[in-house]
C-alpha cells in the first residue's frame, strides 16, 4: 500500500532528520563579520562578531588589525576583556557577580584571513557590554574600547519550525493512513 510505504519511508527519514536538526544550530550562522572600527596610533582596530546582531549565547569574536596603509597586520598579540556595563547590572546578584570575560584572540591561518584574530565567547546576558581590546604590535601597545549591544537570542526558529513541521508531517500521514484504513474496512463490515 502506498501509504504504508510512505510511513515506512518516514520511519527511515526521521532518525536522520532529527540528528541533523539537533546538530544544525551552527548551520544557520551568518558568515559575514562586519564590525566597529577605531583608529589608534595609525592602526585600524575593528571589532566584529560572527553572529551579527550579537545575541546571548555562544559567538565568535574577531579583531581585524590593519596598519596605516590598510594592510592587514599579522604577528600581533591580541587580548580582549568583555564586561557588562555597570548600569545594566541592576540588582541581579548573578549579573553583579559576572566577572569580565578575558580572552586571547589567535590567528588561525586555516580559517582566518591575514590580520584577523579570533576566539569563541559565551555571552550570558543581554544588554550593553563593553569590550576592551588590547593589541601588542612590536613594542607598541594599542587599546580600544567598544560598546556592544547584546540582544536576546530568542528561539532558533529554524530548529523549532523544523521540529513542528516534522511532527505535523507525521500527524498528517498517520491521519490520512488511518482514514484510508477505515474506508477500506467499511465495505467488509
Amino acid at each position, binding site marked *: 500500500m502506498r501509504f504504508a510505504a510512505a*510511513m515506512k519511508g518516514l*520511519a527511515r527519514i*526521521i532518525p536522520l532528520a*532529527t540528528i541533523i*536538526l*539537533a546538530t544544525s*544550530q551552527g548551520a544557520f550562522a551568518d558568515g559575514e563579520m562586519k564590525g566597529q572600527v577605531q583608529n589608534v596610533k595609525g592602526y585600524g582596530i575593528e571589532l566584529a562578531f560572527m553572529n551579527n546582531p550579537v*545575541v*546571548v*549565547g555562544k559567538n565568535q569574536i574577531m579583531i581585524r588589525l590593519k596598519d596605516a596603509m590598510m594592510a592587514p597586520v599579522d604577528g600581533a598579540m591580541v587580548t580582549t576583556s568583555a564586561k557588562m556595563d555597570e548600569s545594566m547590572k*541592576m*540588582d*541581579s*546578584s*548573578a549579573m*553583579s557577580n559576572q566577572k569580565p570575560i578575558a580572552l586571547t584572540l589567535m590567528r588561525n591561518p586555516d580559517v582566518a584571513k591575514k590580520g584577523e584574530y579570533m576566539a569563541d565567547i559565551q555571552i*550570558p*546576558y*543581554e544588554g550593553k557590554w563593553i569590550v576592551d581590546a588590547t593589541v601588542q604590535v612590536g613594542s607598541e601597545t594599542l587599546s580600544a574600547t567598544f560598546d556592544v549591544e547584546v540582544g*536576546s*537570542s*530568542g*528561539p*532558533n526558529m529554524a*530548529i*523549532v519550525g523544523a*521540529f513542528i513541521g*516534522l*511532527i505535523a508531517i*507525521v*500527524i498528517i*500521514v*498517520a*491521519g490520512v*493512513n*488511518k482514514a484510508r*484504513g477505515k474506508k477500506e474496512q467499511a465495505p467488509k463490515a
Partner: protein
Amino acid sequence: MHDDTGSGHGPAAGSATPTAARNLLSFKPFSRFIKSRWYPGIFQYPTLGVFVLIMYQLLAGPRAAHDNFGTALTWVLWWPLLPIIFLFLGRFWCTLCPFGKLNDLVQRFVGNNKPAPAFLKKYGIWLIDAMFIAITWSDHVFGIVENPIGSGILLLLITLGVVVSGALWERRTFCRNLCFLGGLAGNYSRAGMFKLNATPAICATCTTQSCYKGNPAGAGGRAVPGCPMFVFPKTMDTTAECNLCANCVKACPNDSIQMSFRTPTEELWSVKKPRIEVSFLAMVIMGIVFVQNITMLSIWNDILGWFGKELGITNYPLIFTLSFIVAMALPVGSLFLTGRIAGIFNKDGMVRNFTLFGFAIIPLDMAGHIAHNLFHLLAEGKAIWYTALQLFGKMEPSGASTAIIDTATITALQYIVVLLGALGSAYAAWRIAKRNYGEAGNAVATTAPYAVLIALLTVANLYLFSLPMAMRM
C-alpha cells in the same frame, strides 16, 4: 502486543512475601475518585500546561540557565523530585507525564494502532539503557542541563519520538519500550513502597481479562481501554511497568485490583524472572550518579589537568568520554567480579549472579540519585522563585542565596539517604541470596561478597558527597 496476558510470571507483585497491607481502594472516597472520569485527567492537563510553559521558556526564554524559569522547574524541581516520587508512589509520574498524555491524544485522533515491533519488545530495555547513557554523555559534551536550548532540544526530540510512536503503534509503546525515564521509573519503582496488584482468588475465576483488553462498560458505565502499558495484572509480578493510570481499576468488573503501600525493596527479592538488562541498567545508573557527582566537584578540574599533563589530551569531549567509559565500566565490572566470587559459593554462573543481584543495587542507586539531587533541590531551590519573578520583570534581590537550607544540613541529609539506601541494598541482597540459595545453605556465603561491594559503593558515594559540589543554576 506484548504477551503479558499469559506468560505465567507468577503471583501478583509482592505476593511472594504477602503482607496484610490495607487496600487503599477499600476507602470509598479514594476509590470513587480513582474510578471517576476526573482521574487522571485532573492531574494530566495542568501538567501539560506547565510543560508548555517550560518548553516556551527553554526555547524562547533567557539564554543563561541561571535566569531561565524552564531550567529551574526542570532541573531544580522536577528532576530532583522524580526519584522521591518513584520511592513513595511508584510510577505515578508516568500517569501525569505530558509525553504520555500527548501519546494518548495523538493516538486518539490519528493513531494507526499497529502492534509494537518485535525488535522494540525484545530489546526495548537495552535501547533505554543506551539512550540513558547517550543523554548523559550528550549533557556533558553538548550541554543540556546548563543550556536552556539544549534542554529544549532534548524535549523536542522526545516529543517527536512520542508523536511517531503514538501515530504508529498501539497503547503506550513509547513509555514501555523507549522512554529512558520509563526505564529509570521502572527500576526505582521496584524498590518503592507503592504497589498495585490483582487479587489472585478473584482473578482465578475471571474469563473477561477486562483489565488488559478494556471494558466497553467499565466504571460508571463508561468505556475503559485496557492497560496502556501492556500489563496483565492477574499475572504481573512487578510494579515496574504499572503507571497507576487506574484503567484496570475502572475496567475490572470484579473489583479485583488493589492499591496499597508495602515495605520498600520488598519486590526486589520476589521477582520471578529477573532480567539481565534490568540489572545492567541498575549498574549504569550507579555509574551515571558517579559521573554526575564527579563532574560537579572541584577534583574534576584536577582530573582534566591530569589527562592534559600525563596523557597530553586536552580535548574535553575525549577526556569526558574516557572518564565516562571508566565510570560506567567500574560498577558493571565490579558486579560481574562480585558475581564471579559469589559463584564460588553458590555454584551459579557469573551472568546469573549479575542478573539476580543487580536488583539488590537498586536501593543504593536510588539513594545516590536522591542524595545528589537533594543538593540541587535544597541548595538551589529558591532559584525557582527568583526565575519566576523574572517572568514578571522583577529581578532577584542583590546577593540573594538560592539555598533553602545550609550546606552542612544538606550534606547530613545526603549521608542519611545514602546509608538508608545501603541498608536497603544489603537487606535485598540477603533476601535474594536466602530465596535462591537458602535451601542449599549458601545464603550467608553468597551475601558476603555483595555486602562488601555495597559497602565499597557506599563509601565511594559518601566520599563524593563530602566534597563541595557545583550548582546547576
